[in-house]
C-alpha cells in the first residue's frame, strides 16, 4: 500500500468520523427537553422501566405505580401543605387525607358505610364523573387485581360482594364490614384509580367484560391529564385534560421515559435532559448532591429494609437466636457501608418515620450478649445460614449482604450468599417459603402502622411466609384496627413495637428515606407518604 493511498483513506476516515459526530451533535439537540430556560414547561421523568401495559393488572412493576400515581384520579389524596416540610420532614398522617375526586364524605353512625359526594369533574372524553364510575372502577379493581382485592377487602374490610352502592348520580356509598382507620387511606393508592366507565364500557365484550384489552393501552380518567401517546416498555406521554377543573401546576406535558441504566439516569438529570430521575442507587444519588441545577432531596418514608428469618428452620424458630442475630448487627455501620448514610437505623418494630410513636424497647448492638444468647439457645458455635437476596427487591442488597455476612461471622454464624437475579425467581422462593433468610423491603401501600403490622406481621398475612404466629400480636393489631381514639391508637402501636422487639418477627434493619433527584427548575414537590410523585402540583420555572 503506497503512502498516497494511505493518506487518501485516512482523510476519508476523518471525514466519516466528523460526519457522524455532526449528525450526533445535531440530533442531541432534539433529545434534550430543555434546561429550565423559562420557555419549556414539559417534564420528563426517567424511570428504570416503563410498563408494557397501562392497567393495574397485570402489574408492570414500579413503573406502573409511577404512571398511575401521575394520573391523580383517585378518590382521596394527601394534603401535605400543613405537614412539616410539606411531607418531606414528617410523614403525612391519616388526618392529612383529603378528597381528590371526592368533595365531602361521612362515616355512617353504625360505622358500616361511608357516603361520598363527588366533585364536578369531566374526563378528557367529555363524560362527567358519576357514582357509577366509582362503582365500576372499585368493583373492577377487586375483580381483576389480587393486590387491590386483598388490600380493600382484607387489610381494609370493604364488603367484597358489594363494595360500592350508587345512591344517586353524584353520591356513592362505600360498604364496609368493619370500619378501620385506613378506610379512606387505601383509596389514595393508584390501584384504586377511578376510570371513565362510560368510555371504558364501549370497549367491553362478552369475553372481556372489564375492557381489559382496551385498558392495557388506553387511559380514560378524571384527573388533570389525558394520554397523548404510549409506547409499551418505552414511554408514556400525558398532556393536560382540557376538561379538568382544579388546581394544577403549569406543566404542559409529562413524559415517563424508560431508562434502565442507573448511571445514565443520573447523567440525564445532570445534563437537564430529564427533570426527574427515579430509583437512583445510593451512590448515584450521593453523586448528585451539590450538582449544578439539580436538587437531591431526602425525605421521610415508611419503607423499611428488613432481614427476614424463616421460623420453619429449627434454629431460627428460637426467639433467642433471632434476638442474637439482631444484636450482632451494627445497623449504623450497615448504613454507612451500604446506604451512603441515606437511611436511618431501625430502632424498633415500627418505623421511626411515624410521628408520635415512641416505643420503650429498642434494638441494641451487643456482640457479647448476642454470643451468650446463641449459646443459651444451644448454638455456642453458631450454625450455617443461607442468605437470599435480589437487587430487584432491594437495590443495594449485595452490599448489605456482604456486611451482614461479616457481622454474623462474629457470633459464629457462617453465612453463604444467594444472589437471585430474576424478580420472578425471588418471588417464587419468598412466597413458597423456600429460604432460610432473605433481605427484604417493605414499602407499605398505606403509611400507617396498622397497615404495616397487618400486611407484614400478622399470622394470617399473605406476606408472612416466614411462619411468625403470635396470638397476642394479632389481638393487638385487631384492637388497633377497631380503635377510633387517637391516644389509644398510639398506645397500641407502641405496645406492638415493643412486642416486636421481644418476639422478633423480623429483624428490621433500616428506616429508608424517599430520595428525590430533580431539576432545580421544578417547584411544588409535595412528597406523598405512598412514594411515587404526582406531577399535578409541579411547575417549571
Amino acid at each position, binding site marked *: 500500500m503506497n503512502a498516497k493511498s494511505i493518506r487518501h483513506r485516512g482523510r476519508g476516515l476523518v471525514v466519516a468520523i466528523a460526519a*457522524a459526530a455532526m449528525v450526533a451533535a445535531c440530533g442531541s439537540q432534539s433529545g434534550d427537553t430543555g434546561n429550565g430556560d423559562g420557555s419549556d414547561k414539559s417534564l420528563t421523568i426517567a424511570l428504570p422501566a416503563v410498563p408494557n401495559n397501562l392497567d393495574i393488572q397485570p402489574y408492570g412493576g414500579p413503573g406502573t405505580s409511577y404512571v398511575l400515581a401521575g394520573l391523580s384520579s383517585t378518590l382521596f389524596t394527601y394534603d401535605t401543605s400543613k405537614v412539616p416540610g410539606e411531607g418531606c420532614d414528617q410523614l403525612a398522617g391519616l388526618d392529612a387525607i383529603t378528597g381528590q375526586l371526592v368533595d365531602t364524605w361521612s362515616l355512617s353512625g353504625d360505622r358500616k358505610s361511608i357516603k361520598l359526594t363527588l366533585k364536578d369533574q369531566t374526563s378528557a372524553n367529555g363524560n362527567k364523573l358519576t357514582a357509577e364510575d366509582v362503582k365500576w372502577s372499585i368493583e373492577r379493581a377487586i375483580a381483576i387485581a389480587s393486590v387491590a382485592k386483598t388490600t380493600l377487602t382484607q387489610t381494609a374490610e370493604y364488603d367484597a360482594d358489594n363494595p360500592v352502592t350508587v345512591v344517586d348520580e353524584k353520591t356513592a356509598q362505600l360498604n364496609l364490614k368493619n370500619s378501620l382507620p385506613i378506610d379512606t387511606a387505601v383509596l389514595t393508592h393508584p390501584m384504586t384509580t377511578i376510570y371513565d366507565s362510560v368510555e371504558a364500557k364501549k370497549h367491553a365484550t362478552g369475553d372481556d367484560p372489564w375492557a381489559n384489552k382496551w385498558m*392495557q393501552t388506553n387511559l380514560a380518567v378524571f384527573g388533570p391529564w389525558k394520554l397523548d401517546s404510549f409506547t409499551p416498555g418505552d414511554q408514556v406521554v400525558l398532556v393536560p385534560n382540557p376538561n379538568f377543573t382544579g388546581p394544577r401546576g403549569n406543566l404542559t406535558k409529562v413524559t415517563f421515559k424508560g431508562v434502565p441504566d442507573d448511571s445514565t439516569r443520573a447523567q440525564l438529570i445532570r445534563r437537564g435532559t430529564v427533570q426527574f430521575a427515579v430509583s437512583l442507587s445510593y451512590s448515584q444519588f450521593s453523586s448528585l448532591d451539590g450538582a449544578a441545577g439539580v436538587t437531591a432531596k431526602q425525605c421521610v418514608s415508611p419503607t423499611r429494609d428488613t432481614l427476614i428469618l424463616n421460623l420453619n428452620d429449627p434454629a431460627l424458630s428460637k426467639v433467642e437466636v433471632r434476638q442474637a442475630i439482631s444484636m450482632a448487627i451494627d445497623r449504623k455501620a450497615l448504613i454507612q457501608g451500604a446506604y451512603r448514610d441515606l437511611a436511618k437505623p431501625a430502632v424498633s418494630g415500627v418505623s421511626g418515620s411515624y410521628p408520635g410513636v415512641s416505643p420503650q424497647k429498642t434494638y441494641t448492638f451487643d456482640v457479647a450478649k448476642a454470643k451468650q444468647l446463641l449459646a443459651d439457645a444451644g448454638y455456642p458455635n453458631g450454625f450455617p445460614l443461607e442468605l437470599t437476596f435480589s437487587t430487584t427487591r432491594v437495590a443495594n442488597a449485595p452490599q448489605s449482604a456482604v456486611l451482614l455476612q461479616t457481622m454474623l461471622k462474629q457470633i459464629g454464624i457462617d453465612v453463604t450468599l444467594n444472589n437471585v437475579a430474576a424478580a420472578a425467581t425471588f418471588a417464587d422462593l419468598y412466597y413458597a417459603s423456600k429460604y432460610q433468610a432473605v433481605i427484604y423491603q417493605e414499602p407499605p401501600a398505606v403509611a400507617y402502622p396498622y397497615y404495616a403490622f397487618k400486611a407484614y406481621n400478622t399470622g394470617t398475612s399473605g406476606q408472612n411466609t416466614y411462619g411468625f404466629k403470635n396470638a397476642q400480636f394479632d389481638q393487638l393489631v385487631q384492637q388497633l384496627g377497631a380503635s377510633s381514639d387517637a391516644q389509644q391508637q398510639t398506645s397500641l402501636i407502641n405496645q406492638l413495637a415493643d412486642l416486636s422487639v421481644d418476639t422478633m418477627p423480623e429483624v428490621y434493619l433500616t428506616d429508608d428515606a424517599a430520595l428525590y433527584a430533580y431539576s432545580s427548575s421544578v417547584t411544588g414537590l409535595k412528597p406523598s407518604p405512598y412514594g411515587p410523585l404526582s406531577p399535578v402540583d409541579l411547575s417549571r420555572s
Partner: protein
Amino acid sequence: MVTEVAPNPVGLTRAAPAARSRRSALLRLALRRLAILPVAVFLVLTAAFFMVNGLPSNAARNALGPLADDAAVAEFNHKFGLDQDLWTRYVHYLGDLVRGDLGTSYYTSSDISGQLVRYFPATLELSLLSLVVAVVLGTALGVLSAYKSQSVSGRAARMVTSVVQAVPDFAIGLLLIYVFFFLLHLAPAPLGQVGAEDMESLRITNAAALDALLRGRWDVFGSAVSQLVLPVATLGLFYSAIFSRMVGSLLRTALKSPQVEFARACGQPERRVIWYALLDVRAPIVTYIAMLAGFLIGGEAVIETVFAWNGLGQWALAGVLATDLPVIQGFILVATTFTLLLYMMLDVISHVLDPRIETAPK
C-alpha cells in the same frame, strides 16, 4: 448446391452447460437447506419448549402478584393452559404454531407474533448497521495488524484490538455515553430509537430511522440516525475487535501464499496484493460475518438496555427475568429461524464464492 454451414457455437455450447450445471447445483443446495430448515427449527423449538417449561417457576403467582387467591391462580392457569400436563401443552403449542399463533404474554396479554413484529425490526436495524461497522473496522484493523505486523501501526492495531476485546460491551457503551453525551455534549441522550420524539406516529416497519425516511420526516430521521450512532459504535467497536483478530490471523497466512508471492513477482501494486490475499480468505470471512450477525441478533440485549433501545433483545431479557414463557419461546423461534436462514445463505454464498467447497453429501 450450396451447403449452409451453421456458425460454430463452440464457446457457447461448452460454457452454457457448465453455467447451467452450476446454477442447478446451487438450486439443489438451496432447496436442500430449505428442506432442512423446518426440521432444524422444530428440533430447536422442541428442546427449548421442554427446557423453558421445565423451569421451576410459578407463572400465575408471578403475573397475578403474591396476594392472588387460589381461584385467580386456577383461572390464570386454565386461561394459559398451564393446568395441563407438559405433553398436552407441547402438542397444543405445536398446533398453535402451525396456525401462526405464538401465544400471548402472561404479563401484557399481547400476542407474541405482534410483539415480534414490533420489536424485531428495531433490533435488526441496529444489528445490521453494527455489523457493517464491525466488518469495515475489523477488516481495516486486521489488514493493518497482518500487513504491517512489525511496524508501529501494526502493533498499535493489535493493542487496540486487545484492549477493546478485554472490555465488556456494556462498559464500552457506558463509557461512550459518558464521554460523548455527558462530557462533550456531542451525542444525544441515550433515550431509545428517536429520543424524545413520538415513535407511535412513525410506525411503518418499526425501525425508527427507516420509518422516518419512509414518511419523509427528515427532522426525525436526523434524530433517529443520531440515536443510532452510539449503540452502533459500541457494538461495532466491540465486534470489530473480534473480527479483526480473525482477519489478521487468516491474512498473515494468505500473505505468504504462492499466489500472493506470484502477484508481487508480477509487479502488482501492494493494494492489489492485499486484495488478492483477502480474496483468498473470503470464504472464512463470510462465514464469520454470518456468525457475527447471529450473535448480534441474540446477544445485544444488554446494549439495548443500556441505550433504552426497546428492541427484541430488551424485550426478551425482560421476558426471561419475569419467566414469561411465551415471550422466551417467541424469541427463541425468531433467533433460531434467523440464524438458520443466515447459515443457509452462507452455504449458498460460500458455494458461489468458491465452487470447490464441497456441499453435497457423498
